[in-house]
């Protein structure tokens, strides 16, 4: 790296501290800026007139935190939000690695959930050991199909993945509403809902699992309060799978090259079309699995019409993938953050009278603060002797300086300029 000489003063710092600072600096800055901006929104609107505005801000953020991570029950409620979000974020993130925008996580989740639901409601008499795996496989296939269409159209027809994913989202929403609203799956009394899945088609909650294993000699957990299901463990396994795919396989390497420098990928003989299709298939599979596990793990075990279009997980996932910079640890942390924001927001409304939609505003701002390069502006505001000497690396995952090694170009190239280049080509 040519910049080694400039590091000078910072050379004494251990490498891992520097790396940590590099990878955390920007996301933390983005979150802090968004929290400040959100505070300004609360200050201006001042929703709870019984408090002074500043106490209102403090009570809002305090109740947001206590509602998401304050008590064991609230942590469990947060995990209910977090596990589908992890799947969706993995889906968006792996597409990001290839320079593709998967806006379609919501549609892929819906397709996966619907496939599992149809299997679960059709073969009611099958035993659980057969039904659950079949449902899971069906959801993975349905999600993979929904993502694969996008990959195919992108690679072979040059159709922009953003347009196709948005179209496929709405096709999935309306088509599932059609299936939900009509026979044979509609619940007889509950209009706009499917029948609940049979008991053997569901996955246990963490509390049930605990009670049946360690709980036999340790204190038992209340299964009604602790609703988090075991999909959270599967989500963490999927993060490990994601880590393995992206950083330990040739495919993951090729995908990164395609994402960061498609020209280099082309000249290196990497099969671009096949990899684009494959990456979207995997992205769809993650989403589809997440959607199905959420359906199979959460009480009522029913699908509701129009719920899919209103579910914010797909958008949260884009924010989480950006904030986590598509790294496995980043995905976990940012999913916890956004899942926590979502689950804490009702507590914030109850205690601080701040509308839960504040969370959406924070989310949009975090996206902006992550995507826009504010750091040079802040640096210019600092006096010269305080300015850091080194250029902070942007958006490129810290472990992946592919672009500079492949074509000998030292310029710092983010995902986004690479996307631009590829668009010009295709």
């Amino acid at each position, binding site marked *: 790296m040519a910049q080694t000489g400039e590091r000078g003063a910072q050379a004494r710092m251990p490498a891992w501290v520097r790396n940590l600072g590099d990878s955390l600096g920007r996301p933390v800055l983005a979150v802090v800026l968004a929290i400040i901006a959100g505070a300004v*929104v609360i200050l201006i*609107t001042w*929703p709870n007139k019984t408090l002074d505005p500043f106490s209102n801000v403090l009570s809002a953020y305090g109740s947001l935190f206590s509602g998401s991570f304050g008590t064991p029950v609230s942590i469990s409620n947060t995990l209910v939000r977090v596990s589908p979000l992890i799947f969706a974020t993995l889906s968006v993130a792996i597409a990001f690695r290839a320079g593709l*925008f998967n*806006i379609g996580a919501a549609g892929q989740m819906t397709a996966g959930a619907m496939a599992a639901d149809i299997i679960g409601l059709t073969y009611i008499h099958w035993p659980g050991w057969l039904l659950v795996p079949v449902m899971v496989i069906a959801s993975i296939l349905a999600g993979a199909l929904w993502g694969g269409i996008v990959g195919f*159209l992108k690679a072979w*027809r*040059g*159709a*922009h993945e*953003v*347009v*196709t994913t*948005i*179209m*496929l989202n*709405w*096709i999935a*929403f*309306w*088509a599932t*509403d*059609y299936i939900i*609203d*009509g026979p044979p799956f509609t619940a007889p009394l509950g209009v706009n809902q499917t029948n609940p899945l049979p008991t053997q088609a569901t996955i246990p909650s963490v509390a049930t699992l605990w009670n049946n294993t360690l709980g036999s000699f340790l204190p038992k957990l209340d299964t009604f309060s602790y609703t988090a299901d075991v999909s959270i463990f599967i989500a963490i396994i999927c993060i490990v799978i994601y880590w393995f795919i992206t950083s330990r396989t040739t495919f993951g390497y090729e995908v990164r090259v395609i994402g960061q420098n498609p020209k280099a990928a082309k000249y290196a003989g990497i099969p671009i079309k096949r990899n684009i299709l494959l990456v979207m298939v995997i992205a769809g599979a993650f989403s589809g699995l997440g959607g199905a596990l959420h359906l199979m793990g959460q009480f009522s075990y029913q699908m509701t*019409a129009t719920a899919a*279009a*209103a579910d914010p997980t797909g*958008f949260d996932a*884009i*924010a989480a993938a*950006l904030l986590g910079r598509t790294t496995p640890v980043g995905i976990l942390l940012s999913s916890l953050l956004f899942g926590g924001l979502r689950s804490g927001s009702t507590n914030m409304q109850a205690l601080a009278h701040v*509308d839960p*939609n*504040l*969370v*959406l*505003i*924070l*989310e*949009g*701002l975090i*996206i*902006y603060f992550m*995507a*826009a*390069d504010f750091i040079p502006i802040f640096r210019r505001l600092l006096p010269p002797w305080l300015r850091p000497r080194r250029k902070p690396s942007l958006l490129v995952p810290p472990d992946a300086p592919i672009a500079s090694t492949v074509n000998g170009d030292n310029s710092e190239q983010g*995902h*986004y300029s690479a*996307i*631009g280049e590829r*668009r*010009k080509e295709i």
Partner: protein
Amino acid sequence: MNVFFQVVFHALISSNTWQTTLEFAALLLLPALGGVISERSGVVNIAMEGMMLAGAFASVMVTLGVNHFGLPSAVSVICGLLAAIIAGGLMALLHAYFSIQFKIDQIVSGVAINIIALGLTSYLLFEIVPVGVPSLPDRLRLPVPPLGPLANIPFLGPVFFQQNVIFYVAVALLFIVQFVLFRTNIGLRIRAVGEHPQAADTAGVNVRLLRYLCVVSSGLLSGLGGAYLALGVAGVFNPNMTNGRGFIALAAVVFGKYIPLGAAGACLIFGLGIALSYALQGLGSSANISNLLNTLPYIFTLVALVGLVGRTTPPAADGIPYEPGSE
């Protein structure tokens, strides 16, 4: 199935269906025109949904607010209309600022705008009117202009001459935008900036300024569309009331091959789909078919993208931030 075709047939010969078709076509047309302008100038705009929502919110809140101070209804509605246009424009300005000045990815910015618009309008709605906005009385809605004898022509009268005032504005804007984009100097420049900004810059065109103008005007049009939805069609504001219409408009832009008249044709087809799904909802047990009809705009657009009915290609520099001196 026989009943289904009978209902469709009855719907198709009813002036009511065609009136609804044109109403929704115009509703989709306004943001779609905005999308065409923005994409033609080389800035991807998937944020029409958010801009519409902002416009719808501003129009209702300002109309009610101004009326609350005792000003006449007409003044309130005009203020609401202006507020909607400005709100859409401000959202678009945000998009333009980040995607042109900061050169952040235009899709990321579009996603962020949709999220912020949804969050901000819902948040403000519940902070200002915790119980929700009441349905607007007729005097606070956009009027249907009296067109005298024309409105009484059988069939054609209700379809063409009993429409909301914004419908006529939308039709006029369609021809204006089509003319400006393809028959004037400034339109040539806009298209040049979207196809090859380096060449346009060399020829003395201010690329950034033109892109700013185009993105902001897409916001103005989307905001107007939002006002039409809230003050004209629905007469109320609900959180997330656009419910994907901005995305159908995006579909119309792509399906219409980034040409205003093409987008208008797409809007007509999509509008007919919506009108038919309304007609089918009165059909009792088969009402569920309307859910399937709702997928048609998106399926049409996918088919158009695949190239079965003539491939659509976006402008060459669509989505690429302009770097002076590159290439």
